[in-house]
């Protein structure tokens, strides 16, 4: 009986009006990455990697500053010792030969030997990378969670007071120099300012004399807070603004009107239909912004003495430690390329529309 049906709005006919795409439909088809698509992306990434390697070489080869001279500055070394050092670093050969050596090395995963630390760049990167992953990873997760969530809310109630406040805050954060925020955080929360007590350590990742599991965890947490907040501020604004913008594009879409027409509650329309569609571009952004995260991390790590790749980079800049800079450049760029590739390979699983394009 028709009357009974209309008394239970949206009970049976929801499936008749499926969203144009989204989580539900994907699950049904199952994850398939089309081979051609995947091959294209992998090839593209390989070309990018090659470009990174070539750029890395020439960019840092033209850096002026004789590294041997810089290294031996301030102490007496005779010409023979200097020549020996040049030979040891392989910088007495012609540029083309150096490029050959270099490419062969990089392919083997050998990024050369740091001038100032006299250890292999790969092992230096290896020993610093986790500190950076820990910091950037935590910050990205929190920033993405907060940014995307608040972005959704802002877009849904766009024009409201809350939206205006949130967008305003995001725009201010977006316009704020990272290093400056870090300095201010140290002054206010590291040292204490006015009535605010100095709550957090001013630098480092952990204290040397902490023993036991719980004290260590607690110690690490305390050290993480300020650098993490700095990075979150950088990333959060971007996530919020993009999520808000992409969702606003969906707000007027026909299928949402349909969903509403069939009586779905506003919350459900948002959560089950609009958000899944806007999520993909937003998640793309999270991946694409890895470059921003790396830049932010260089500054946050420098100011907070965080023992990661960022401060390694800053230290290498002051010598300049050519092989280390070169290695870090390649590593940073390669990390971004690889993660982007992963994201691209995941798209067809997340959103079948990508397959056809």
């Amino acid at each position, binding site marked *: 009986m028709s009357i009974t049906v209309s008394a239970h709005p949206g009970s049976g006919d929801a499936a008749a009006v499926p969203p144009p795409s989204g989580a539900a439909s994907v699950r049904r088809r199952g994850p398939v990455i089309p081979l051609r698509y995947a091959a294209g992306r992998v090839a593209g990434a390989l070309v990018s990697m090659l470009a990174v390697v070539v750029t890395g070489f020439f960019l840092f080869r033209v850096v002026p500053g004789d590294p041997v001279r810089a290294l031996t500055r301030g102490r007496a070394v005779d010409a023979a010792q200097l020549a020996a050092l040049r030979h040891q670093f392989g910088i007495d050969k012609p540029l083309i030969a150096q490029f050959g050596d270099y490419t062969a090395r990089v392919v083997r995963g050998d990024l050369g030997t740091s001038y100032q630390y006299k250890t292999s760049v790969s092992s230096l990167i290896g020993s610093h990378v986790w500190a950076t992953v820990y910091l950037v990873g935590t910050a990205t997760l929190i920033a993405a969670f907060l940014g995307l969530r608040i972005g959704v809310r802002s877009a849904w109630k766009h*024009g409201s007071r809350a939206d205006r406040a949130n967008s305003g805050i995001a725009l201010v954060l*977006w316009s704020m120099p990272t290093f400056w925020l870090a*300095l*201010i955080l140290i002054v206010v929360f590291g040292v204490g300012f006015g009535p605010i007590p100095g709550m957090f350590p001013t630098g480092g990742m952990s204290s040397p004399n902490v023993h036991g599991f719980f004290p260590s965890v607690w110690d690490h947490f305390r050290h993480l807070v300020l650098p993490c907040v700095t990075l979150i501020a950088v990333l959060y604004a971007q996530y919020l603004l993009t999520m808000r913008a992409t969702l606003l594009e969906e707000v007027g879409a026909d299928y949402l009107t349909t969903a509403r027409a069939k009586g779905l509650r506003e919350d459900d329309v948002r959560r089950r239909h609009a958000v899944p569609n806007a999520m993909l571009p937003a998640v793309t952004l999270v991946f694409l912004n890895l*470059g921003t995260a790396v830049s932010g991390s260089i500054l946050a790590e420098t100011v907070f003495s965080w023992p990661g790749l960022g401060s390694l980079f800053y230290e290498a800049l002051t010598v300049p430690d050519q092989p280390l800079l070169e290695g870090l450049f390649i590593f940073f760029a390669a990390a971004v390329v690889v993660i982007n590739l992963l994201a691209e390979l995941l798209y067809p699983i997340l959103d079948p529309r990508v397959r056809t394009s």
Partner: protein
Amino acid sequence: MIADFRHRRAGLVGLAFLVLTAVAALAAPLFISAEDLSAVFAPGVPRQAPSGHFLLGTDAYGRSMVAVTIWGARISLTVGLLATLLAVGIGALVGVAAGHFGGWVDTVLMRVTDWFLVLPVLVLATALASVLTPGVGTVVIAIGVTAWPTAARVVRAQTLSVESRPYIERAKALGGGHWHVMRRHILPNVMPLMLAQATLTVSAAILTEATLAFLGLSDPTKVSWGTTLQLARAVGAVSAGDWWILLPPGAAIIAVALAFTLVGRALEQVLNPRLQERM
């Protein structure tokens, strides 16, 4: 509608602030003398807290922070604008070429663009800044060379949409060469959007300038917001709690970058009606 008006209002406020800042920067030599900015003949005692005479206190040389902050706008704005000119110039060139020629030109150019887009900007900019002789010019180049890909993408998209319009077909049919079509038909149509994009780029360029100066890659003898902050850090003003040296340049950077962003967003809305409802 309300949102639309509000954002334009924000854009207007931003614009008004920028005009004020620009006027102050241009007129600075009229009320700030060489002595005011001289390290030796500075009027005050180094690192003096705000007082009636020095409203924002003095910096590490004893110069008035008011004078230093206003003067800093000159370099920061110049670098921001020049770097943007360079970035949008490159971006427009690449974007129009890619959109107009299509085919393999498009593929190659966009591949390069995408590649630059994912590179960590700061890493590339610092590398460039350390390759070239340090100075304001170097910072302009470092920012310009790293900031163009976004502009290129935007311009390409717009070029593609312009290319599909009938009058372009007509111009081509009438024997208009590539150069003619690009210059007389595409560029004028792409220009307004480029302006909006440029405004947004200035904000990023000003932030990058401050960052490079902070890392010691700019010319420390020139007064800019970035170098002022770097000097403050070098002399230990942070731990001494000399907030009056830290706050003005930071606030100035935020205010100007924010103003450019607001103006850019407002421009985008006006120029691109489709965006109106989502901004």
